[in-house]
């Protein structure tokens, strides 16, 4: 092995295979987005340095398997010209996953790919106590499974009922998937339980008179989720955040908290089981100036 290949190996992202002297080269991809030019370069690299196959990972990543040790530096250089970098492994912030968000999907509430790029720019490959994953779903349909991630983010619309135009027809209550709305025509009141609301906005879309309108629209954060051998679902934290800047400040605080409290090789969810979620929320509130 020459010194350049050895250096690449030490940086990570080259997964040692069962077959001696072969590596699966993990690529740096954000939110599953690749240009056609990048895809072509990945195909070329797979043929030139691997055995002509690529592997699509569980979290929107791509790996080129079967690359021999002596080609590790060369494959990196080859792909680098198209802006495709080599990925990471070990105790670091991993691939940020995202759906296509509000610019493409009719259901999208937030610009998930843009936020994924921002999180990636600041945190990708940064050291943390154990692997750390961020996943972003553009809306409550949650295609990107926010709760499976160490930090999950969901687009969220919170309804607000304005009585004047309401005819108490009951459609909002009928369409609410979490049964968080109660219509009382006798008292001329519609009550929305925000604790039960899942932020889908169906009640707003369905309201014939627009009496059910938008209260808050923004980002919901979940913390402590993971899969693997012992899965944990992330739990909702903080209030609805209203801007990407607020989200970035919260993500920064969560990672600072994990660095301070997490033990080596302890997943974030397990750290939170030890410290309690309140400890995390009060730390973030202090850092970001926002009440949980």
């Amino acid at each position, binding site marked *: 092995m020459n010194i350049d290949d050895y250096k690449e190996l030490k940086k990570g992202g080259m997964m040692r295979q069962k077959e001696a002297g072969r590596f699966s080269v993990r690529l740096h991809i954000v939110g599953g987005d690749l240009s056609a030019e990048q895809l072509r370069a990945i195909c070329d690299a797979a043929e030139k340095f691997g055995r002509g196959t690529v592997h699509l990972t569980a979290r929107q990543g791509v790996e080129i398997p079967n690359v021999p040790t002596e080609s590790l530096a060369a494959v990196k250089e080859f792909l680098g010209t198209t802006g495709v970098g080599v990925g990471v492994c070990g105790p670091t912030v991993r691939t940020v996953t995202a759906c296509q968000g509000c610019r493409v999907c009719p259901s999208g509430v937030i610009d998930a790919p843009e936020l994924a790029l921002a999180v990636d720019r600041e945190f990708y490959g940064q050291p943390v106590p154990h692997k750390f994953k961020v996943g972003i779903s553009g809306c409550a349909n949650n295609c990107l499974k926010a709760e499976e991630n160490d930090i999950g983010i969901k687009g969220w619309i919170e309804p607000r009922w304005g009585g004047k135009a309401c*005819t108490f*027809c*009951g*459609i909002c209550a*009928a*369409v609410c998937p979490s049964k968080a709305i109660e219509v009382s025509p006798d008292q001329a009141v519609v009550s929305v339980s925000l604790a039960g609301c899942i932020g889908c906005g*169906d009640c707003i*879309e*369905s*309201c*014939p*008179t627009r009496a059910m309108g938008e209260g808050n629209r923004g980002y919901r954060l979940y913390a402590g989720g993971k899969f693997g051998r012992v899965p944990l679902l992330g739990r909702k934290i903080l209030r609805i955040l209203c801007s990407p800047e607020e989200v970035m400040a919260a993500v920064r605080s969560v990672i600072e908290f994990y660095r301070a409290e997490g033990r080596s090789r302890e997943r974030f969810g397990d750290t939170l089981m030890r410290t309690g979620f309140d400890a995390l929320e009060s730390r973030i509130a202090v850092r970001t100036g926002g009440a949980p």
Partner: protein
Amino acid sequence: MTPTLDITKDVCPMTFVKVKMGLGKIPPAGKLTVLLAEDALKDVISSLKQEGHRVSGVSRQESAFLIVVEKEGERP
């Protein structure tokens, strides 16, 4: 008399298509009554609103909903 369209046995996108076709047969500002299942409420009403129509009446019919749609535009 207001025509009534029963789409309780249809699923998306036919619910939406049938309402659109139903509205195509009536004049601007005319009324169409639609009987639809709970599952279809969101998609049908949101698309009607998007296209400028108005839902002017809602009533329950056992497990379904009866809505009165006023087609967009000025009376001819």
